[in-house]
């Protein structure tokens, strides 16, 4: 796989490729700069900040400060769904269908863009009077030195009823989308979380972190939690609303789905408000059940524990039926997953339920702790790229800090197996002799497919059609190929059906015309077929 690389590149990439050994503690290189020209899956900081974390919030106007492209490409392309249950859509504010941009021109680059930004904010405010406006910086903004934070602050003061805050999420910061998640977390924490004191009603109050409601995943999870009697205060940020973030500090537990994109908020909320966090995963029926049990165990109330068990038992009946129906088409097959910062891990649970083996996996923008587990965090060397991302200093809020668990209670829960602030990472869950590769390049992907011929490959839109040209179906795990939801029990059923459809499609058998196949066959009898050369173009 590395042979074709220049020596320097090969040395670097080697450290990002690990043959998993569950018995050893292995180090993988992650969250480092991508090699220029290698063809990466990764995107930028702006994408992680505006696109991923803030994108799914319906009632914040997301204003991109920059040339038109960044706003355009992040306009509705991530499939975040949103609705308020019990309200007709007409009464809901929803700005997600809009793209707001300052559309910077060359004169703004030369003379500065602050004036145009201020004017744009004022026009957006005058038009729809939103509660909040988020300003997102694109590459040139940082370079020309526009002070977006000052402009935002002045607008907040001027309006009085609209919180304007800004994100310095220029695309060149960090090494991937991951830096953008961190910046988004910081600004939400600074400007929104804890700004509303009214405490929401409900028993067993939790926040769900790192769930983005792609294809309706959050709706499914919201339903399950409601069935169990668990109150979801805020979701960061699938199907979210500004006010919910604002009073999310009243929750008694933070449950984290995507560790990579949101663990910062969880950590800061624990320090400031005393809310403990646990890792959950609602991808996969078994994992969903396990996650619900963990939440119930935390609250420790027999009534809740019983109710959760009842819900799980009910939900598992159709899940098992669907799983059995899919198994003949999936069992014994193999999958590869190269996507995101959690999905490449979480979706392995669904494949396991389908009797499929995940033979290679890796993240697009994960860090070492997402592979090796959080216990290695102290050993991560902070490089220049990470140092450039602000680390907020958070202290205990003396007035609002509330200890949710006594030390004894916590110790007791830990003894019973409930782990706080813990994520074991992807490598712990993968079998030995499987491959783990960080920031997979296009070239490496093609080698993997040729060598291992997986039955299904999971990645994103940029990889989809190249992989399919090789005769291997590709399941998009960012957009779900516009299907889903895949979360929870209902989502598991959808996923089983979709994967069974893909692994049993007849179209792959129709690649190559009959006469082409005959030719190959007769040619191979006589002598080896010659490789096809590019020069054929002229004669063709």
């Amino acid at each position: 796989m590395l042979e074709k690389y220049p020596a320097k590149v090969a040395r670097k990439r080697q450290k990002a490729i690990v043959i998993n050994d569950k018995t050893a503690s292995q180090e993988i290189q992650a969250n480092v700069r991508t090699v220029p020209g290698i063809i990466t899956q990764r995107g930028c900081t702006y994408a992680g900040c505006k696109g991923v974390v803030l994108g799914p919030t319906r009632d914040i106007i997301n204003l991109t400060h920059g040339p038109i492209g960044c706003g355009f490409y992040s306009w509705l392309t991530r499939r975040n769904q949103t609705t308020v249950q019990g309200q007709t859509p007409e009464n809901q504010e929803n700005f997600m269908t809009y793209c707001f941009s300052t559309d910077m021109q060359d004169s703004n680059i030369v003379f500065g863009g602050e004036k145009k930004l201020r004017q744009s904010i004022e026009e957006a405010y005058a038009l729809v009077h939103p509660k909040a406006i988020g300003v997102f910086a694109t590459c040139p903004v940082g370079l020309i030195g526009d002070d977006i934070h000052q402009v935002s602050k002045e607008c907040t003061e001027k309006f009085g009823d609209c919180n304007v805050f800004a994100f310095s999420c220029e695309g060149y910061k960090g090494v991937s989308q991951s830096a953008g998640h961190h910046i988004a977390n910081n600004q939400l924490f600074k400007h929104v979380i804890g700004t509303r004191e009214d405490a929401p009603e409900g028993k067993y109050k939790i926040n769900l972190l790192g769930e983005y409601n792609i294809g309706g995943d959050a709706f499914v999870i919201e339903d399950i939690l409601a069935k169990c009697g668990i109150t979801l205060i805020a979701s960061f940020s699938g199907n979210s609303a500004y006010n919910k973030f604002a009073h999310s500090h009243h929750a008694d537990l933070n449950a984290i789905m995507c560790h990579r994109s949101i663990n910062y908020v969880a950590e800061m909320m624990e320090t400031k408000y005393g809310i403990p966090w646990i890792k959950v995963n609602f991808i996969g029926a078994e994992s969903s059940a396990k996650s619900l049990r963990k939440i119930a165990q935390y609250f420790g109330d027999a009534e809740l524990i019983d109710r959760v068990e009842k819900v799980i038992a009910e939900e598992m009946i159709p899940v098992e039926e669907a799983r059995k129906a899919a198994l003949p088409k999936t069992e014994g097959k193999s999958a590869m997953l190269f996507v995101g910062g959690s999905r490449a891990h979480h979706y392995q649970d669904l494949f396991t339920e389908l009797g499929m083996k995940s033979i290679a996996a890796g993240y697009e923008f994960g860090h070492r702790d997402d592979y090796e587990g959080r216990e290695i965090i102290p050993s991560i060397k902070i490089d220049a790229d990470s140092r450039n991302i602000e680390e907020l200093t958070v202290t205990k809020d003396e007035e609002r800090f509330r200890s949710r668990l006594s030390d004894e209670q916590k110790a007791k829960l830990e003894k019973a197996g409930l782990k706080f602030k813990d994520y074991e990472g992807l490598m712990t869950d993968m079998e030995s002799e499987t491959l783990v590769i960080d920031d997979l390049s296009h070239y490496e992907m093609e080698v993997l497919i040729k060598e291992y011929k997986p039955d299904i490959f999971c990645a994103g839109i940029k990889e989809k059609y190249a992989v399919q040209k090789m005769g291997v179906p590709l399941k998009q795990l960012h957009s779900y190929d516009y299907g889903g939801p895949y979360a929870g029990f209902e989502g598991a059923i959808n996923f089983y059906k979709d994967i069974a459809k893909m692994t049993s499609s007849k179209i792959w058998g129709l690649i190559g015309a009959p006469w082409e196949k005959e030719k190959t066959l007769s040619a191979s009898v006589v002598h080896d077929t010659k490789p096809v050369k590019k020069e054929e173009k002229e004669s063709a």
Partner: protein
Amino acid sequence: MLLKHTTADVADRKALTINPAKTCQPIGAMYAALGIHGCMPHSHGSQGCCAYHRSALTRHYKEPVMAGTSSFTEGASVFGGQANLLAAFNNIFSIYDPDVVAVHSTCLSETIGDDLAQITQKAIDEGKIPEGKTVIYASTPSYVGSHVTGFSNMCAAMAEQMAVEGVEVKSPTINVVPGWVEPADMREIKRLLKAMKVTSIMFPDTSDVLDAPMTGKHQFYPRGGVTLNELRDSGKSRKTYCLGSWASAAAGEALWKKSRVPFEEMSLPIGIKATDRFLAAVSKETSCPVPQSITDERGRLVDMVADMQNYLSGKRVALWGDPDQLLSLAEFLIDLDMKPVYMVSGTPGKAFMAKMEAIVGEAVPEAKYKNGERADMFLMHQWIKEEGVDLLIGNTYGKYISRDEDIPFIRAGFPIYDRAGHSYFPTVGYAGGLRLVEKILDALMDRQDRDSTEEKFELVM
């Protein structure tokens, strides 16, 4: 309502763009570069630019879109991206072995003042470009123009940097710069020229690149694309036809400056008259007559329109997209007795207003149109709310207006994220005209069927 915050009161905006009818330069440069055979497009900027452009092009064409990025970090943004681009050249040629790398800049690399010509020269001087390999570069700052400008700049770079110069006697071949159209459109234009027995060089040419067949292997550099030899030879051609002034004129001009190949700006050949003009001009220039088979195609298109005229006549249409497309489409719609009443394009260019006025001024005096900054879909939607239309024609983003206002919608232009077929079936030429009319009729007649009362429901239409 999906766009419930859009109201009919048009407030004057001086800064804010909402729901743009354009995107940025680099994606156009990337699309154009894909139309060179054996070419790896390369984005000199942050990773996100390349990821966004590849994603957008992939969603539209549903084909692999391979491109590299210089992966700028904060350090590169401060000290310049030269080291990144030099490393990228080395890696791309080693790993992916293209014949040519076509580099375009971004707002980031332009703001810090990276000079692609200088860096490329340095790479050549230092032996970083292997023997026999080529680099083409185009400056495409995202804060100037639009995606169309980027396409145009990369086309001009191809001519400027590749074409031979100093050829006195010109060959009978003509050059065609097709504009930002679908692979199917490029294929169709070539088919028409071949039927006329005209030899031509088309650049760029994304047919057989972005509509490549499924073969069981990923051909990194598919069969299609203009070859470097053809690009060199474009300097020997007798004439260049620039289809669409916004997308293609710059390439014609560049070729004139470098190789003294005369050029002619033409409308994109969408619709009857624009196709007539193109074929007539080529026929006159090359003395190759338009064959009966193509004249018959034209006749079939006119016949279909005549047959179905009462379903088309007087229907009000709103369009958004690129100037070249909008001008030709508006002219065609008027020939169909329809009324193009609202048109917006985020792509700037003063000539648009005058050209559009010449097309719609007399036939549709009530028409409203605008291009450049803040000529966006939000404004067009507001116009629609003031007075409705019968049909929407434009890219995928129109589906939100279509649903809210319950207006029939046909997809045209870029991007089309939510339907398939646009890359396989042309809209240019007479055959393309037939397809457009079919689509328009389907949309309008399906609507009539849906809306008619039971007693008025028609079998024969």
